[in-house]
C-alpha cells in the first residue's frame, strides 16, 4: 500500500467528481455512501500503509512516491511527488479517521438540505479531505503550498455554504444592574468565508515568499534536499525562511495577529467547523512547523517567536472564550487557544508533543463541535447558550459525549487532553518557566470557560421553555460518531503516556525517526520528582478550574453576575474580542475599500483618464476654435488665400 499512497488522495477526488458533477441525480443515500466510502478508502489505505511502514526498519521509513513531473523549467524541477513517512502517515490517519467520522455524522446533520446542496456539501468535504491529504503527503514545498491553498479554498466554500444567509444579530447581555452590553453580530456566511480566505491568504503571502527564498537559497524545493543542505546555510537566511513560513502558519492556524477569521468561520455548517476549523486544516500550521523542524532547530530566534506567539495566543483566545454567548464561538476561541498550545510545543522543540496534542485535540475538539452540532440540530440552529439550559435530560448521549470532550479539553486527569497538554507544559518548563506559567494560566482559564459553557448549556433549568420542549436527541448516525470520538478522547492519552509512568510513549517513539534524526542533543532532562510535581500541578489546576466553574456558574450565579458588573470594562473588552476585528475592519477592510475608491475615482477617472480625455478635448476645442475662421464668407477665404500666397512669395523672394 505504501507505493499506492496516492490512492489516499485519489479516492476522495473521485468522490468529488462523482458527487460534484452528478450528485444531484444520484440521491442522498448514494451521495452519502460515496462521500463516506471514499474517505473510508483513504483511511483504510492510510492505515495499511502505516502498518507497512512500521514493518520497515526505522531508518528506511520514508518512501517517496513520484507520480509525474509537475513543473520543469531549467533548474526549477518540481515533481508531483508524495512522501510517506512516519509523520505524514500519522497525519493521514488522523485526518482521514476524523474525516470519516465527521462525514458519517454529516449524512445525518445535513439531511434536511435539498439534494443539490447535499451533494455539493459532500463534494466540498471530499475535496477538502483530498487537499488536506495532499498537504500532509507533499514531498516538496510547492506541493505543500498547493495543498495549503486548496484547503483554504475548501474552507472558503464551506464557510460560505449557506450563501443566502445574512448577518445574525445577537441579543445584548443584560447585567444585573439593568445595563446592557451589546454583543457583536455574527458575520454572515459568505462574508465570513471571504474574510477567512483573504486573511489566511495574507499569511500565505509570507509563506509563498518563504518558498521563493528556499528556492533562491537551495535551488530546490524538495524537503529532503533542503533539509540535507540546511546546515550549510547562514542562520540569518534560515531564520528569514522559517519566519516567512511561520507567517503562513499564523494565518492558517489563526494565531495572533491573524486570528480574527476563525470565530467567524463558525458561520459554516457545524461538521465543517469540526473537521476543518478544529481538527485538521487549522492544525496544518503546526504540521508545517513540525515538518520543517530541521529548519526551525537551526533558527532559535524563529522557534522562540513561534513559542511566544503560541503562548500569547493561547491565553488571549482563552480569555475571550470566557465570555462568549455563542456555543460554537466558545469552541472556536478554544481552538485558537489550543493551537497556541501546539505552537508553544513546536516552538520549544517538542515536536512530538505538538503532534500528540494535535491528535488528541482533533479527537476532543471534533467531539465538542459535533456535540454542539447535535444541540443545534435539536434546537433548530439556536446556538446562543443563554437560551439553553437543562439539556442533559433531553439529550443524554450528547450531554455525556460533550462532558467527555469538555473534560479532555479542560485537562481532567487521565483523559487524552491531560496527557498531551501536560507533555507540552513539561517541555515548556524545560525551555522557560515563564512560558510554562502562561500555559498553566491558560489551562486554568480553559477549564473555567469549558465548564462554563457546559454548565450553562446542559445544567440547571431550561431558560427557553418552548425551545426546550422541541429539543430531541439526534439520530444514531450522528450519535455513533460522537460515541467513537468520546472513546478516543478518553483513551487517546494512551498513545503518549508520560515517561514517568514507566511505559513507552508510543507516539513519541513512532515519530522519533523524523524528529530525532536531526534534533540537537537533548539539553537536559528534568528530574523525575519535578516531572511528577508538574504533572500534579497540571492536574490540580484542571480540577480547580472545573470546580471554580461549577461554583461560579452552577452554585453561585449571583456572584458571577455581580462580578460582571464590577469588571464591566474588562467584560466589554472581552466580548468585543479586544476590538481586534474592529481595528482590522477600520484599517484594512474599510481603509482598503476607501483607498480603492480613491484610486478609482480620483486617480484613474479624474487624473489619468482626465489627462487622456483632456488631451482629446484639447484637440476638439482647438478645432472648434479654428472653425471660427472658417465662417463661410468667401472674401475671408480669399483673403486667407492671398495672405498664404503672399507669405510663400515673400519666402521665395527673401530667401
Amino acid at each position, binding site marked *: 500500500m505504501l507505493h499506492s499512497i496516492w490512492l489516499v488522495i485519489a479516492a476522495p477526488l473521485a468522490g468529488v467528481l462523482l458527487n460534484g458533477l452528478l450528485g444531484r441525480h444520484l440521491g442522498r443515500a448514494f451521495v452519502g455512501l460515496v462521500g463516506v466510502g471514499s474517505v473510508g478508502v483513504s483511511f483504510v489505505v492510510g492505515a495499511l500503509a502505516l502498518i507497512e511502514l512500521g514493518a520497515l526498519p526505522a531508518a528506511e521509513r520514508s518512501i517517496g512516491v513520484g507520480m509525474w513531473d509537475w513543473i520543469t523549467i531549467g533548474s526549477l524541477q518540481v515533481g508531483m511527488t508524495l512522501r510517506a513517512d512516519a509523520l505524514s502517515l500519522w497525519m493521514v490517519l488522523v485526518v482521514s479517521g476524523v474525516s470519516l467520522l465527521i462525514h458519517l455524522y454529516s449524512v445525518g446533520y445535513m439531511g434536511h438540505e435539498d439534494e443539490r446542496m447535499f451533494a455539493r456539501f459532500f463534494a466540498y468535504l471530499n475535496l477538502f479531505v483530498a487537499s488536506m491529504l495532499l498537504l500532509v503527503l507533499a514531498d516538496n514545498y510547492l506541493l505543500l503550498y498547493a495543498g495549503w491553498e486548496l484547503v483554504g479554498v475548501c474552507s472558503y466554500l464551506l464557510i460560505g455554504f449557506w450563501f443566502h444567509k445574512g448577518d445574525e444579530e445577537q441579543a445584548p447581555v443584560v447585567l444585573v444592574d439593568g445595563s446592557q452590553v451589546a454583543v457583536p453580530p455574527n458575520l454572515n456566511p459568505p462574508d465570513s468565508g471571504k474574510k477567512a480566505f483573504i486573511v489566511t491568504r495574507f499569511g500565505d503571502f509570507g509563506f509563498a515568499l518563504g518558498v521563493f527564498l528556499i528556492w533562491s537559497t537551495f535551488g530546490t524545493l524538495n524537503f529532503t534536499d533542503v533539509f*540535507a543542505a540546511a546546515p550549510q546555510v547562514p542562520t540569518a537566511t534560515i531564520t528569514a525562511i522559517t519566519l516567512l513560513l511561520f507567517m503562513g502558519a499564523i494565518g492558517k492556524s489563526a494565531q495572533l495577529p491573524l486570528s480574527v477569521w476563525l470565530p467567524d468561520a463558525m458561520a459554516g455548517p457545524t461538521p465543517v467547523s469540526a473537521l476543518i476549523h478544529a481538527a485538521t486544516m487549522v492544525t496544518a500550521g503546526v504540521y508545517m512547523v513540525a515538518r520543517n523542524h530541521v529548519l526551525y532547530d537551526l533558527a532559535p530566534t524563529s522557534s522562540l517567536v513561534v513559542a511566544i506567539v503560541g503562548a500569547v495566543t493561547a491565553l488571549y483566545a482563552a480569555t475571550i472564550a470566557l465570555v462568549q454567548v455563542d456555543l460554537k464561538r466558545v469552541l472556536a476561541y478554544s481552538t485558537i487557544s489550543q493551537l497556541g498550545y501546539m505552537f508553544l510545543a513546536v516552538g520549544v522543540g517538542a515536536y512530538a508533543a505538538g503532534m500528540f496534542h494535535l491528535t488528541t485535540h482533533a479527537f476532543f475538539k471534533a467531539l465538542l463541535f459535533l456535540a454542539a452540532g447535535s444541540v443545534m440540530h435539536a434546537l433548530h440552529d439556536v446556538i446562543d447558550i443563554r437560551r439553553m439550559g437543562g439539556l442533559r435530560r433531553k439529550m443524554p448521549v450528547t450531554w455525556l459525549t460533550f462532558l467527555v470532550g469538555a473534560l479532555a479539553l479542560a485537562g481532567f486527569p487521565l483523559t487524552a487532553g491531560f496527557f498531551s497538554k501536560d507533555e507540552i507544559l513539561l517541555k515548556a518548563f524545560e525551555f522557560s518557566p515563564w512560558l510554562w506559567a502562561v500555559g498553566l494560566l491558560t489551562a486554568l482559564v480553559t477549564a473555567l470557560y469549558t465548564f462554563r459553557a457546559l454548565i450553562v448549556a446542559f445544567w440547571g433549568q431550561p431558560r427557553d421553555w418552548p425551545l426546550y420542549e422541541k429539543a430531541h436527541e439526534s439520530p444514531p448516525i450522528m450519535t455513533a460518531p460522537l460515541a467513537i470520538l468520546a472513546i478516543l478522547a478518553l483513551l487517546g492519552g494512551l498513545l503518549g503516556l508520560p515517561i514517568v509512568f514507566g511505559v513507552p510513549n508510543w507516539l513519541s517513539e513512532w515519530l522519533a525517526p523524523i524528529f530525532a534524526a536531526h534534533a540537537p542533543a537533548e539539553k537536559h532532562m528534568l528530574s523525575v520528582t519535578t516531572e511528577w510535581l508538574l504533572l500534579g500541578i497540571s492536574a490540580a489546576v484542571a480540577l480547580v478550574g472545573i470546580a471554580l466553574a461549577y461554583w461560579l456558574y452552577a452554585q453561585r450565579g449571583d456572584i458571577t453576575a455581580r462580578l460582571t458588573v464590577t469588571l464591566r470594562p474588562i467584560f466589554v473588552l472581552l466580548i468585543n474580542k479586544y476590538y481586534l476585528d474592529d481595528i482590522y475592519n477600520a484599517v484594512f477592510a474599510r481603509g482598503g475599500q476607501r483607498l480603492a475608491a480613491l484610486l478609482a475615482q480620483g486617480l484613474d477617472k479624474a487624473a489619468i483618464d482626465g489627462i487622456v480625455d483632456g488631451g482629446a478635448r484639447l484637440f476638439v476645442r482647438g478645432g472648434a476654435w479654428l472653425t471660427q475662421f472658417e465662417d463661410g464668407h468667401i472674401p475671408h477665404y480669399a483673403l486667407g488665400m492671398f495672405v498664404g500666397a503672399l507669405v510663400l512669395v515673400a519666402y521665395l523672394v527673401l530667401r
Partner: protein
Amino acid sequence: MMTEQLYFPLLSLLIGLPALVALLLALLPRERHDLLRGVALGGTLVVFGLSLLVWFLFRPGAAGFQFEEDMLWVAGLGIHYHLGVDGISLPLVVLTTLLMVLAVLSSWRAIQEGVKAYLVLMLLLETGMLGVFLALDLFLFYVFWEGSLIPMALLIGRWGSERRVYAAIKFLLFTLAGSVLMLVAAIVLYLWGGNTSDLPQLLRTLPGQLPFALQSWLFIAFAIAFAVKVPLFPLHTWLPAAHVEAPTAGSVILAGVLLKMGAYGYLRFCIPLFPEVVPYAVPWLSILALIGIIYGSLVALAQEDIKSLVAYSSVAHMGFIVLGIFALNSQAMAGAVLQMVNHGLSTGGLFLLVGVLYERLHTRRMSDFGGMWARVPIFGSFFIIAALSSAGLPGMNGFVGEFTILLGTFHVNIAYAAVASFGIVLAAWYLLTAVRRTLFGPARQGNGSLTDMTAREILVMLPIVILFFVIGLFPNWFFEKINPAVEVLAVQSPAPQVHVQLGK
C-alpha cells in the same frame, strides 16, 4: 537555416484561411444568419485544427523557429514575408485559434444585427492576430499589428454598448499613437540593419552596430508601443473603456489575445534586439508592472460594473506577465509565457460568463446581482471556478504561471517579488468580492426569470475549464515547448545573480 520536413506552407495557410473564410462569408447572402454563423464556426474550427497540427508537429526541446517560410515580399526594399513559430508564439497561436472558435460560438445569439459584417470582421481579426504572432519581419509584423487593430475597433464601435464609439476611438487612438512610434523605430532599425527588416537577419547583423543612445531611443519607442497594448500603468485607461463597451466576444478576444500582443512584442523584439539597453530598462518596466499589479487590483476592488472589474484585473494580471518577462531568467519568462495563455483562458472565461449574465439581465452592475447561485447553479460553478483560476488556485492554470513568475522574480529582486506577491492577496480580495456580490447573499427580486446556462454556453465554457485543470496539473506539456525559446532570451540577457547555490 534548414527548413522543416514539411514544405507545405502550414503557417501561411493558418494565417490565410480565416481571411479566405471571411471572403467566402462576404459572398454569402446576408439574411442567412445561421448559414453565416455555421460557415464562420467551421472556418475557425478548421483553423483551430490546423494550429493543433502545428502544436503536435512542433518539436519540443529545440530552440529557434520551426515551420519557417521565407520569401522576398517587397524585393526593392528587402522586406521579407517571413513566418515562423517558436515556443513563445506557439501557445499564443493555439490560444488565439481556440478563443476564436469560442468567440464565434458565444456570439451565436448575442449578435443579431449585422451578423455578416460581424463575422467577417472576426475572421479578419483572426488573420491579423495570427499574423502578429507568426511574422518574423518587422514590417510584416507591423502590417498585421495594425491590421488586427481595425477590425477590433470596428467590432467595439458597432456592436458595443452605450458608449461604444467613445471606447472604440479611444482604443484606436491609444494603440495607433503607440504603434506610430514603433513604425519609426522599425524604419531606423531597417536602415541601420543593412536595409533589411527580417528579424533573424537583424539579430545577426545588428549587434555592435547601434550606438547605445540610439538603442535606448529605439527601445523606448518599441516599449511604449507594447506598453499601450499590454497595457502598463499609466497607459491603461483605454482598456476598461474598451472592455466594458465591447461585445462579449470582443472582450474575450481583446483580453485573451490582443493584450498578449504587447507582452509578446517585448519578448520577440525588445529583449533580443536591444540587449545592451535591457538591464537599464528592467527597473522602469518592472516598477510600472508592479504599480499595475497593485493599482489594477485596488481599482478593480472599487468597481461597480463587473466587466470593469474584470478589465482592471487584466491590468493587474498583465503586470505579472511583464514583471516575469523582465525578470530575464528562464523560470520567470517561461512562467510569463504560460501566464499569457492562462490569463487568456481565465479572463476570457470570466468575460464569457459576464456575457451570459448580461444577455439575461441586461445589466452589469453588481448591485443588481446577488444570490444567483441558487437560481443558476451551473453558471455559479463556472463563475467560481473561473474566479479561482484567475486568483491563482493551485491545481489550476493561474497558479503555475504566477508561481513561476514570482519564483523567478524573487531570484532577481526580492522587493519586486514581495510587492507582486501581495498582489495575489489583493486578487483574492477583488475576485471573491465579485463572487460574493454576484452569487451569494439573498436572492434579488428582479432576477426571478433568470435561466441557467444553455448547452451551447456550457459547450463554450467547457474547453476553457478543462484547460484550467490540464495546464494546472500538467504544465510541463507547455513548458517543454516554451523552455528552449525563453532560455535563449535568458542567456542573451544578463544572467540573474545567484545568492547561494547549494543542494543537489
